[in-house]
């Protein structure tokens, strides 16, 4: 019996169309739009001005605090303007617009870094390098990585968990990365273990990616400290808390962090970015993005520069098919529909999903029939129907008492509801209000 998390979970259709497609390199876009708020926390501060010439990998926005991250120029070129562009949040946000210098060769060189196994940096430098290179969690939450690695003295961390679950349907970015960069990922894990003095690392992979499990097991053969754990296929196993329970059977307390139970979790994409930052001094300027959809002709995985407009990606896979209704940034479960195709790829964009009209439409919500399906599938053990009603009626204090803030917004409740009730929409809304109340109280 394979491991999994004990409470709730669902089995959405997998639709991993692109899992056999090797990662291709996207052509460098003519213009990039780099938002300054690509991570959770304080937005970065712009340190370039109009008409400035920037080099590839140059810092263009500096970290605005501890929970923040540097942003580097993804191309060499000229800053044409600092503008407000609609980003993935659906609102206009501050962006740095850079026109690519077509004559500058550094833009078009295909980076080829041979595997480098020796770790020459010491602990302090590794952590500094991760901070400087603007590494954030590439699984989708974009939490600045250096914050996760900044251990307090009273936290004893004994296990590093690597998240290669990719439980979202359609997405295959992490899967392909594990297949193609297995050795680099193992070195990346060794770097982190070296920096944090951890002697155990477990890579969690769902059992629908048997090839990745095999490849990583092979790559990890030389290092006995690194293990690969095959997990049952169940959504939302890629969520940090669920993954910890599945692999080491420890439950993160309410309001706590994985550190509190002696665990640190990182996504495989983040590990690869850390490898590149530490071994080759490469800042985070590109990431793997799955561009997919049932009607997309050439759906595939791409190395994409941060700031590339999504319309470039859509064109690369053969344009928007007829009857397209929605373009989702991320996977179908937790992703968010974007407002138009000018929205740029950010550090958190793991996939672009094109959904046609017949799949995208929501049905009209009906009355709750008290079937309890939402309670049954909630991986956090909450009562989504109750939380929705409390948020809808404005009873936020009661909602806070019912632990609305522990909701991980996986959307399992909305997925199973036979009455098509907008459970997650209202829970998210309630969470935002409770968060506001909590901050004003403090």
């Amino acid at each position, binding site marked *: 019996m394979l491991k999994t998390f004990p409470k709730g979970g669902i089995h959405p259709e997998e639709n991993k169309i692109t899992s056999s497609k090797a990662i291709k390199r996207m052509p460098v876009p003519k213009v990039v739009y780099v938002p300054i708020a690509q991570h959770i926390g304080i937005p970065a501060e712009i340190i370039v001005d109009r008409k400035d010439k920037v080099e590839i990998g140059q810092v263009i926005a500096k970290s605005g605090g501890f929970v923040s991250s540097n942003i580097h120029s993804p191309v060499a070129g000229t800053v044409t303007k600092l503008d*407000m562009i*609609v980003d993935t*949040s*659906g*609102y*206009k946000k501050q962006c740095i617009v850079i026109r690519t210098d077509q004559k500058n060769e550094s833009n078009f060189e295909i980076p080829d870094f041979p595997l480098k196994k020796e770790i020459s940096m010491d602990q302090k430098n590794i952590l500094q390098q991760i901070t400087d290179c603007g590494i954030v969690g590439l699984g989708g939450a974009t939490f600045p990585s250096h914050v996760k690695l900044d251990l307090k003295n009273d936290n004893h961390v004994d296990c590093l968990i690597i998240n290669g679950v990719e439980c979202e349907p359609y997405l295959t970015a992490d899967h392909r990365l594990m297949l193609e960069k297995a050795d680099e990922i193992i070195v990346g894990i060794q770097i982190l273990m070296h920096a944090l003095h951890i002697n155990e690392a477990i890579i969690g992979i769902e059992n629908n990616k048997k090839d990745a499990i095999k490849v990583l097991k092979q790559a990890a053969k030389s290092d006995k400290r690194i293990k690969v754990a095959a997990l049952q296929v169940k959504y939302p196993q890629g969520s940090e808390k669920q993954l910890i329970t599945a692999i080491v059977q420890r439950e993160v307390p309410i309001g706590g962090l994985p550190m509190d139970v002696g665990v640190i979790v990182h996504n495989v994409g983040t590990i690869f970015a850390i490898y590149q930052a530490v071994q080759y001094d490469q800042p985070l300027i590109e990431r793997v993005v799955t561009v997919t959809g049932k009607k997309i002709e050439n759906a595939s995985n791409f190395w994409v520069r941060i700031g590339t407009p999504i319309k470039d990606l859509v064109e690369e896979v053969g344009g*928007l098919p007829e009857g*397209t*209704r*929605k*373009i989702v940034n991320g996977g179908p479960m937790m992703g*968010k*529909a*974007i*407002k*138009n*195709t*000018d929205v740029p790829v950010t550090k958190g964009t793991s996939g672009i999903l094109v959904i046609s009209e017949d799949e*995208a*439409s*929501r049905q009209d*919500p009906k009355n709750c029939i008290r079937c309890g399906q939402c309670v049954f599938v909630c991986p956090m053990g909450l009562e989504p129907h109750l939380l929705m009603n409390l948020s809808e009626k404005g009873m936020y204090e009661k909602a806070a008492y019912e632990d609305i803030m522990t909701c991980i917004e996986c959307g399992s409740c909305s997925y199973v509801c036979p009455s098509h009730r*907008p459970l997650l*929409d*209202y829970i*998210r*809304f309630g969470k*935002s209000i409770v968060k506001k109340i909590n901050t004003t109280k403090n």
Partner: protein
Amino acid sequence: MSDSVLYSVFLLVSLGVIAAIVLYIVSKKFYVYENPLISEVDDILPAANCGGCGSPGCKAFADKLVNTEDISELFCPVGGNEVMKQVSEILGKEVTEKDPTVAVLLCQGGCEVRPKTTIYQGPRTCAVSAMVYGGETDCQYGCLGDGDCVAVCDFDAMYMDENTGLPVIDTDKCTSCEACVKACPRDIIEMRPLNKRDLKIFVGCLNQDKAGIAKKACDVACIGCSKCEDICPKDAVIMTDTLAYIDPIACTLCRKCVEVCPTHSIIETNFPPKKVKKPKEEKPKREKVAVVKAKVESVNPKTDA
């Protein structure tokens, strides 16, 4: 026969007497003293229980009025100066007079002038859709059109106009309780002073985008051309980079700005009609809207959020 009638009468009378004694004792024993002024003040208050004063209801407000020494900062917006004057007479405390105000919608981006570029299928409340994204149109400052303000209005002073998709405020019914101001996630409802004939001039737009972008998103957006600022004889127009705001106190209602506004984003209400050929102006405007709409659709495919 007569016995049974007597018995029952006796039984009921004695039951009644016992109950009366018990009630009398309880009412004396558990008597709670309440300042009689509270109920007196409560009777004067409008009994709307709207919460516009900041208290949860009229009775609570009456309690607060009686038990607070300095009530100069307390005000019942529904009752207005008249009610506050009576309260002042009863309590012998000083109250401040406030000019009457009325809620005003600072957006006139109806369906015709502000084309929708996306489809929203989530819960139809402004609070949720504002959290999801900038709204169905390209203007992220304007009305979302889901009617949270109408839902909170206790006085039936608001309704949604089906043609424009915007809320309409009935000035006669509005009591300036500010419930709609608090409910609006976009902050597009402003309280402006109310004069006798309800004459108002204000900029009906809050779009802070640059002129071209604002105009593309909405035909009646303020483009920040500052023509109104130049023509205003009283310096009542306050310009930020891309947006004009008319200070209601400095404004003398001369209507000069209304005429010069190239996008018709300055609204005048209840003025007697001027001798201007209005119907001629409107016709070409509509054609333009259609062109803008078609353009926007061809650039951005309809996506849903």
